[in-house]
């Protein structure tokens, strides 16, 4: 594969894209939010159990490209068990990472999605799940659109 392309489609992304973790609707949850990317028609639903300021469980369902599915999968893994404040901070750092606006700081393995910043048309794919989470944390129950 072309090295620039490899920068976008890292092995970990392909892996999460193929076999997303935290995938499917859970039996129980306290929060549910639909998201839609009007650019490509992708839909995603985020489910979470949020109690006492903590994200106890996060799962998602839907269809999307490898970037959006991998990003959602990794996000759910990252935020589960974290405080809402921490999840909120991660959102901001992740957003900086993929838009390349500022140094994102240490963001752990989410770093594999940094390649997205060189593909402006794909930034929305990577941020769809994160925007959904952000709205959820703010208590905004309306469907999210990345437009």
């Amino acid at each position: 594969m072309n090295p620039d392309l490899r920068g976008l489609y890292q092995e970990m992304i392909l892996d999460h894209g193929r076999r997303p973790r935290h995938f499917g609707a859970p039996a129980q949850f306290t929060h549910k939010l639909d998201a839609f990317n009007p650019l490509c028609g992708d839909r995603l639903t985020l489910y979470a159990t949020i109690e006492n300021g903590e994200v106890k469980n996060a799962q998602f369902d839907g269809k999307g490209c490898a970037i959006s599915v991998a990003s959602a999968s990794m996000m759910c893994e990252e935020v589960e068990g974290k405080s809402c404040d921490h999840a909120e901070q991660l959102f901001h750092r992740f957003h900086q990472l993929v838009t390349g606006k500022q140094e994102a700081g240490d963001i752990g393995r989410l770093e594999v999605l940094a390649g997205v910043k060189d593909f402006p048309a794909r930034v929305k794919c990577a941020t769809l799940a994160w925007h959904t989470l952000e709205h959820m944390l703010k208590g905004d129950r309306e469907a999210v659109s990345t437009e």
Partner: protein
Amino acid sequence: MTASVSAQTISTPTVDIDALRAQFPTLHQEVHGHPLVYLDNAATTQKPRAVIDAISHYYEHDNANVHRGVHSLSERATQRMENVRNTVQRFINAPAPEQIIFTRGTTDSINLIAHGFARAFLKPGDEVLITGMEHHANIVPWQQACELSGATLLHAAILDNGELDLDDFQRKLSSRTRIAAFTHVSNALGTINPIEKLIGWARAVGAAVLIDGAQAIAHAPVDVQKLDCDFYVFSGHKLYGPTGTGVLYGKREWLDKLPVYQTGGDMIREVRLEGSTFAGIPHKFEAGTPHIAGIIGLGAAIDFLHAQPWAALIEHEQQLLAHATKLARNIPGLQIIGEAAHKACVLSFTLENVHPHDIGTFLDFEGVAVRAGHHCAMPVMHRFDVPATARASFAIYNTFDEVEKFINAVESVRKTFA
């Protein structure tokens, strides 16, 4: 790989594609280190040198406003622009040049008609019939028109192979149908609709007929008198011409009675502060300074096409589609969306376990430009239960070699994600 048929055995002997390609400057560039393979022609076509030169020539020599000056430049600009009306008239065999209205494009043309219908011809109880395979440009203006007028919007269904359900179309036509508006060729499926038949049925119940010719105009000769449709609309940019130009052809009786759309300068006969009277056709629909350079470019595009062996090139396009379709069928997990018996050169497809966006990005790195998305036809995506498709669309300047590069690139995407 599957691409084994050599280009020599199937190329069309009567056309020199290399010489044709030489006239399109944008085609000769590299993308990510590969020669560009431009297969997004349904979105917009590349422009030949003749079009680019006509636009530059206008700005370098004739630039002036039209219909407003007695000075030489204005007369020249007016003449050049009005000549294009004649060129378009001949191109689609309209009865008279004043039945050619210049617009910004297909979208603008349809809005003009839908707006006029909402204002003057639609009322509660009336119906507008479209199809399930329309571009958003032929859906949303009718939704608006129906909302404003109280009329009802109906649509005819699509069959599993991507063809229009003709029975459903006929079932939904009635004496309540004021206008039937449908596409000549589907941009998302490639289906060529049997419009002669559809027009006949619609006229039989007394409905007006609007044909969206955006995807048809560059791929087959159109004769609006033979079709006997009331309106035929298209965009210049899908016909090797400039963006921001379009055409609305209408029957005279409709253009005369259709209310004005945008209003202001150029479209009036007399303005008094108490009220105004409007110009006749075509000017009553052309408010404000038009895209003069673009219209001149559109004329150059049509002249360019006329200078080519167009019939042979249409055949060439069909062969490209047939070759691409045959090779695509050999790719495991690839599903073609739209397998109508009569198709224009559009190959829409999905690949198992690979999202169209990922296909699009991968192909770009091989120099292959395709479209990935819903193609402004979300209802078609819903109908086939896919979020999006990848779409390769061919034009006169594409080659068999390009088709094979495209197929090889798709095959390599499949392997990467397998």
